[in-house]
């Protein structure tokens, strides 16, 4: 009889423990993929581009202003700069110094990552077409279920900063999902905005199901 309450206590204790078991990560609700930061085919650094060089988001993700999808920039957009910029500043300097030391013309330095970009476009280091271009298979990070429709246009038009959902991208070496992107997460924001005063009917923030599901 004395053993009984102990047994009960043990049982009660085990239930939450069972939840903690899989993986060391703290328990998350289903559908919450925050923290997902997969290896990408090319090590593209948002920290460098959006952070240090502070290139505007819309330069590459121009879709976000006119389309539902922000879109991943076509390789041609990368080449706007990387046709000339083929390696980091330090590497260039080093090569130049080396060239001076060896009293020769500096060679073209191509960083391994940018080389991948050229390869994708079927170019060699001198940017001459070698083979047929093959598109770059970026790994999708911010991925909503197929039955959910998110429209970048509308949110951008309402001047919602990219960081609101995508987090401090300019500080990310490799892009990472910050928000849970769960339905609850969306709805909370919509509820808050719906409560906002003003906003004409075209800008009305809806919590209707059909705002996202159709």
């Amino acid at each position: 009889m004395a053993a009984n309450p102990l047994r009960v206590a043990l049982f009660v204790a085990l239930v939450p423990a069972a939840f903690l078991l899989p993986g060391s990560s703290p328990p998350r609700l289903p559908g919450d993929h925050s923290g997902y930061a997969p290896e990408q085919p090319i090590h593209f650094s948002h920290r460098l581009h959006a952070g240090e060089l502070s290139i505007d988001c819309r330069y590459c993700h121009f879709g976000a202003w006119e389309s539902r999808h922000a879109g991943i920039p076509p390789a041609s957009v990368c080449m706007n700069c990387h046709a000339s910029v083929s390696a980091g500043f330090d590497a260039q300097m080093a090569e130049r110094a080396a060239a001076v030391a060896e009293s020769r013309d500096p060679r073209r330095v191509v960083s391994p990552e940018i080389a991948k970009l050229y390869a994708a476009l079927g170019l060699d280091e001198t940017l001459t077409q070698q083979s047929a271009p093959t598109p770059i298979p970026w790994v999708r990070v911010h991925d909503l279920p197929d039955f959910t429709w998110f429209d970048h246009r509308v949110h951008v038009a309402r001047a919602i900063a990219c960081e609101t959902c995508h987090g401090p991208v300019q500080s990310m070496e490799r892009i990472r999902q910050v928000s849970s992107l769960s339905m609850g997460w969306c709805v909370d924001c919509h509820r808050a905005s719906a409560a906002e005063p003003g906003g004409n009917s075209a800008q009305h923030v809806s919590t209707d199901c059909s705002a996202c599901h159709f």
Partner: protein
Amino acid sequence: MAAELEVLAHAPTRAPNPHAPSRPSGCAVPSEEPLIGGGKTLTQVTRDVCAPLERRPTFAWWAALCAALAMLLFGVWAVGYQTATGIGTWGLNRTVGWGFDITNFVFWVGIGHAGTLISAVLLLFRQKWRTSINRSAEAMTIFAVLCAALFPVIHMGRPWLAFWVFPYPNARGSLWINWRSALLWDVFAISTYFTISLLFWYVGLIPDLATLRDRARGWRKKLFGWLSFGWDGSGRTWSRYEMACMLLASLATPLVVSVHSVVSTDFATSVVPGWHTTVLPPYFVIGAVFSGFAMVLTLMLIARRVMRFEDYITVRHIHAMCKVLVFTGSIVGLAYATELFTAWYSGNEYEMFAFENRLHGPMAWAYWIMVSCNVFVPQLLWLRRVRGSMVAIFVISLLVNVGMWFERFVIIVVSLQRDFLPSSWSSYCPTLVEFGAMVGAFGLFFTLFLLFCRFLPMISMFEVKTVLAPAHPKEHA
């Protein structure tokens, strides 16, 4: 009476217990024949009831079990196939969205009702004759509700998401459930009903489990010891125990009424002509009691023969149940009449048509099967000669089950088949897979019931003991 004699003649003669002082049996109710035949002593009761559990199972039992398992397997295949392929494997269509699935659901819920009624309502009314049958009736209830609960799950297009009908906190914001849906009321009604019935049944079992424990040895002693919660039959426990039973009974009584009322709201709260009527809740409840008693009767008639319980389930019990059958059957008839009257009196063209369609429409045969089996057939029990033959009673009880199944079929399918817009009128023809699910449910029910007869006391020993005739005060030397 001729009937009893005939029955008692069937009873296997047993050597009278020498220790048992002969006592005029049936003093509990002097006027009538005894509740328990054969002048049993307490220990005889124990022995008789435990006998089927302790002797090796008979061939008949094995045969029955195999048959039941075969049916169950057929059902498992059918449900498996349907879940993997789609509801399209059923005969449903854009107009008739429910067919065998919900028909069987309502049917099984109905079957369940007799158990609770016997154990709860008759307990409250101090009906002593219930003691011999309440245990198995309750078991029947639980198994029936189990079968019933199957159908709402498998009838879903995506049964693997069935858990969405429960209000649990979720990452959807939180998106709760629609408390206005009668289907949701079902979820709560059925689960509550199942839980309460299960508790009631198990609490009732505890003293008998203790008896088994004390008779058994080896692993069975351990098992029953574990199951009997360390029951020792002390006076204090008994008094609390009886109080608890009374409480459960008084809770179960309104519950049993509520459950089928709620089930009926699935139909009553919707706009479909033939469904949308206020008579449905009482109509469903009485129908449930009716079908339930029929099922109890069916099972008891088999059990008393196969398991030699003629002394415990006596002709008196059978007749008591027959009376209930006649009574409830007549009320069901009244309900059918009311339904027709309401439709006619409403002057609502759609209502009127719905019932015209039931009476003379393409599926009128179903309606007339239902009426003849539920209203006319039970009336035969007024006749002494019919009551006299256990075979006749057995057949009648079976017919009532059939009739009640068709009642649900008529309400669901025939109403849906032709509603408002003639362009959408359609028909319904079940497929093999649907029959599979139905047969499977029966398989499950009988499997469970057979295992129950084999491993648990089918008659509540301690309750029977209370209704045994008390001994005379003995002289002491």
